[in-house]
Each structure stands twice: as C-alpha cells, then as structure tokens.
C-alpha cells in the first residue's frame, strides 16, 4: 500500500490558478495604470517619462530586492532607508576629499562606490549581529539602526548636503540607452542575477527554508545564523548601492536621502506577493511592485494630482496584495 495525494476539487483549483499568478495580476495593474495616466495626459506615454520612472525605480528596487530576501526569511529590515542616506553621505565625504586632492574623477567615483557598498555592508552586519548574536527581533534591531544611522547622517553633515565631489557624477544618470542610463542597466543586470540566485541556488533555497520553518532548516544542518547574517549584509550592500545611485543623481550626499525608503521597499515586496510571515516571495513580484510604486509617483505628478494621493494608492495596492494572498491560502483547501 502506498500513500496517495488526494486531488483538490477542480472548481477551487481553477480559482487558485487565477490568483496563483500574482505577477500576471501585477502586470495587468501596471498596464492599467500606464493606460490611465496616458489617457489623462498623453505625455505620460513617452520615453522621457519612462526615464524618470526608471530613475526613481533604481534605488527603490535595490532596497526592495534586499528586503525580499530578508522578508522571505521571516525577518524585516527597517534600516534600508537610513542605510541609503548614510552610505551616500559617507561616500560623498570620501569623494569630496579625493576631489580636493585632485584625484581623477573616475577613480574618485569608483572609490565612492566601494565606500557606499562597504558602509551598507557594515550596517547590514550590525543588524545581523543584533539579530543572531544579541537575539533581538529583526523589527526592533533594525528600528534601532534606522534611528541611529539617520541620526548619524545629520551629526556627520550638520544637516546640509555634502557636495564638491566629482563633476561628472550627474552625467552618469543621463539616459543614454533609450530611457536607461548606464547605472540603470547595471542595476537591471544585478537584479536579474540576484533573482536567479534566489530562485535557483542553494543560497536561495536556504533563504526560503529558514522563513518557511526555521526548526526544519536547522535540523537539516543549515547554519541559520550564518545564513541570516549573509542575508542582512546583502540587504545592506544593496541599500549602499542605492545610496550611491542617489548620490550620482543629486551629485550631493544628502542626509535626508532614503528617508522612509524602508516603507517603499516593504510596500514593493508586499505588493509583489511576499508574505511578512516568511517563506514566500519572488524577485519578479518585487520588481513589478517597485515599478508600480514609482509609476504612481511620476503618474500623479504628470496628471497633476496632489502627490499625497500616492500614499492612498499604495495603501490600496498593499491591501489588495495581502487580500489576494489570503484568498490563495484559502483556495489551497486541503486540510
């Protein structure tokens, strides 16, 4: 005698199929939005606006991709916005210093990039140590680093922007390949590679396993603490990249950069279909979720609606995403 899988009733499986493909729904939402904004103001449907959306999308998607890993493990990283700000500010100080010593612009930018990434990795490591060694829950640990590093942004800068860096920084953000600028293309590649890594590699498998059932992961011999450390460092590194991109875009390190960026990141991940309880989430969903967020931002400006409506629209999208998730669980039936 062998055990057998009993088939779920066919009616519910059809409903399930419909809601299962969150990415498909998100694409529909995105198309509907673009259609709506373009209908309201035809200028929306131009490469120039797409370039604006992309430029906003880059820092959001970088934060959100890191956040996706963290949320899949069942954790949360509230510090990504402050990491964006602090990495940008410290990189700006480094680049200002190098520029004042007449270091070549490209070298200065390369070093600035390394500094931003290192700062991000450092903050990620602090989060990881607080969570895995001091055993502070991720929400509280990263809430503390959110406050601490935003505070340090202001202490180190005195509240003002840090300029006098390499002059060609801003040129890098000019669209060169259709609506894409150079860093934008690099980010697309980074996101694609990380997406493959999450869904196809052992690292990704462990990320899901920990969020799905930490005990099972641990009994299977996975070094949960080490893995979580890597995940939070990854989140910090990507936020550091976002901080560097915002530096390029503004050509100053602003202490307020990335402020409340963690909310955008989490919103993008949740709209993308991930569950805060862990174990569920896809990079494609996060990519679409962050696109929807930044499309709303530009769209509302283009059609001339007060930007505060963005928060309302985002709230509705989050509620819809969570609702459809509940629906999917419900249609799963089984037990």
């Amino acid at each position, binding site marked *: 005698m062998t055990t057998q899988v009993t088939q779920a009733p066919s009616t519910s499986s059809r409903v399930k199929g419909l809601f299962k493909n969150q990415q498909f729904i998100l694409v529909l939402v995105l198309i509907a939005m673009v259609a709506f904004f373009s209908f309201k103001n035809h200028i929306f449907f131009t490469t120039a606006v797409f370039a604006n959306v992309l430029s906003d999308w880059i820092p959001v998607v970088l934060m959100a991709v890191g956040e996706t890993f963290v949320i899949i493990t069942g954790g949360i990283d509230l510090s990504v916005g402050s990491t964006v700000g602090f990495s940008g500010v410290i990189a700006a100080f480094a680049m200002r210093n190098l520029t004042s010593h007449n270091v070549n612009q490209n070298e200065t930018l390369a070093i600035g990039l390394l500094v931003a990434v290192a700062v991000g990795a450092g903050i990620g490591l602090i989060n990881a140590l607080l969570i895995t060694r001091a055993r502070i829950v991720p929400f509280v640990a990263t809430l503390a680093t959110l406050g601490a590093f935003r505070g340090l942004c202001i202490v180190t800068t005195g*509240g003002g922007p840090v300029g006098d860096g390499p002059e060609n920084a801003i040129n890098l953000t000019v669209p060169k390949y259709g609506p894409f600028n150079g860093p934008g293309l690099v980010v697309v590649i980074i996101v694609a590679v990380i997406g493959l890594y999450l869904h196809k590699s052992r690292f990704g498998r462990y990320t899901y396993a920990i969020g799905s059932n930490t005990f099972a992961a641990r009994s299977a011999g996975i070094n949960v603490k080490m893995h979580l450390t890597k995940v939070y460092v990854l989140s910090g590194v990507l936020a550091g990249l976002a901080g560097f991109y915002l530096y390029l875009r503004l050509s100053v390190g*602003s202490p*307020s950069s990335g402020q409340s960026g963690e909310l955008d990141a989490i919103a993008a991940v949740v709209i993308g279909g991930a569950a805060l309880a862990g174990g569920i989430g896809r990079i494609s969903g996060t990519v679409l979720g962050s696109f929807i967020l930044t499309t709303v931002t530009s769209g509302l400006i283009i059609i001339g609606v007060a930007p505060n409506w963005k928060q309302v629209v985002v709230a509705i999208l989050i509620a819809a995403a969570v609702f459809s998730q509940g629906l999917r669980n419900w249609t799963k039936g089984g037990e």
Partner: protein
Amino acid sequence: MVLDSGSPGGATLERKIMSSSIKRRSLAAVAIGASAVLATAAVPATSHAAAKLKIAFVMGAESDPFFQAMKVGAVAEAKVKNVDLIWQGDPSVYSPATQIPIADAVLAQKPDGLVLIPTDPTALQATVTKAVAAKIPVVNVDTHVGDLTNVVSFITGDNADGGSKAADAIAKAIKYSSSKKFQVAVGLTSATATTNVARLEGFKAQIAAKYPNITIVDVAYSQSQPAVANTNVSNWLTKYPNLNGIFAIDGTNADGAASAIQAKGLVGKVALVGYDAYKKNVDLIGKRVITALIAQDPAQEAKRAIDTLVDYIGGKTAGIQKNVVIPNFTIDIYTHAKEKKQYTYVQK
C-alpha cells in the same frame, strides 16, 4: 510655528524629529564642551569683567549653517561692542524640548541681555517671562514668541520680501516681456511650514502685480528630501516642455531641481531661483545651473540684536524699533565676488 527659517536643505519638522533621542544624551556632553571652549574664546583672560556687558544667544541648532553664519556676525559684533558673548543651543536638534533647559542654564549665568531664537512660540514664552522677571532684557531674532509685549525687539529676515525678490529674479532671468507667455513652477518642502507659505505668498503677489504673463503651472512638495524634489522637477521638465523657470523655495528644493536640470541637459534653458546662500548653491551660480539665490542675512540679524541690547541696557531706547526686518539680498552671476562671499553662509 516657524520651523525652518533659513535652515539647511530640508530642516523641517521631520529632520528635527529624526534627530533621535539616542544621540541626544551623548551629544549634550559635546555641546557643553564646545560651548565652554567658545565662551573662553570669546572672553579674553584679561577682560575687565566688571565693566563688560554679558550678552547671551540661545539659538536653534548649532549645526545649521544659518545659525553658523549668525554666529559669525554675533562674534564680530561682540568684539566691536566689547561685550562677552555666550552662544548656546542644541548641537543639531531644533526643538523646544532641548532648547528650554539650555535657556534655563543660560539665564542662571545672569547675562545682561538675552537674544532668544525661540524654537516654538508658545513653549519659549515662559523663558521670556523668567528673563524679564530677572531684569534681563530679551530680543527675538528670526522667529518670535507668541506674545511680544515684553520683548524689546524682534529682528527677522523677510520671507514675503524674499518671495517677491525671487519673482523679480525669475522675471529678469527669463527676459520677461508683456508680449509673451511664461510658465514657472514652485518647489516647496511642505504645505504648512510658515516660511514656505510666506515666501510663496510673496512670490505670487509680486507676479500678480508686476508679471501678469507669468503663470504658476505647478507646485510640489519635497518632504525635505532632495531626491523627492528631483523626481518632481524631472517630471515637470517632461510635462511642461515650455517651462521657463523654477522657484526652489529652500536648499532641499534647490539641490533637487539643480540636479534634475543638469541631468535633463536644460542648464541655461530653465531659470532656477533658489533660497539661502549655501556655499554649494552659490558655486552653482558660477556654473549657471542656479540663476539666482535669495540670501538672508543672519550675520546682520545678530549684529542688530547685539546693538539693540547694548543700546537698551545703556538707556538709549529712543532709536529701538519694536520690529526690524532685515532685507534679503539677491545673489546672481553679476554679484561681486566680495558680496557673494559676505552673503554665503558659513558651513562646515
């Protein structure tokens, strides 16, 4: 409640609040240390203490370039008038919660006069009452307490005048003529900050009075973030292909607008008038990214405050005005280097 008169970037409510209490405690020690150094610097060891007047400044936030520039003016004038200067304020937090204890500590030193830049009109009223009860005359600078009855003088920059000057600067930059139509947009930080409101009102009033062919096509809010201002302006530049000018109402908006205009390759094509003479933005005038900046004169405000108190204590009350408005200064490409330097805020 005036929160960010001339403060850097987006020194609005959020920023003040962001300065978390975590760091406040450790920085208090730094503040005390720093002020001790300052006090010694301002008081020569050989001073004839009995004869010298002691005037205290209690300002908003030490780190703010606006207050740093004010301090430069205060130190210089203290030297001229031979007074001891006590300069005090929180290192970075613009808030009554941190200012009130500092004000109390300063009053305990029994200065001859107090220059108070209240971070809140209601919360700091008690400080004025206490000072007056101790026979210490009070001058308000930049912002004021709710009830000015017992305040000797209130000295401030004029935000409405600044807005009006910004309109003039834009009109000049876009070569205004009554035979053409012009479009401008205004980047604000928040819909409620009183400085923003006063500047915008001044701007609108001047356009209505003198430049009727200019239409304000859009306003947007930066929430104190240059990146948000950049997004707003990037989209405006796409949405209004014929946009002639942008009025960036503070440093944050100027940062965002300047970078957006540069990235879109519209330097020199779209006029950008900003507010506050931070060094970085003064430099951008040289590169023609920013057309003009409306500079306040915090050093002048400090000078007037000290002069007023010295006169008042000396009994020369006749010339003292209850309300002094220090005019703004417009910096553009034609401004003489010396004046540019004079009006540029000191910044670390």
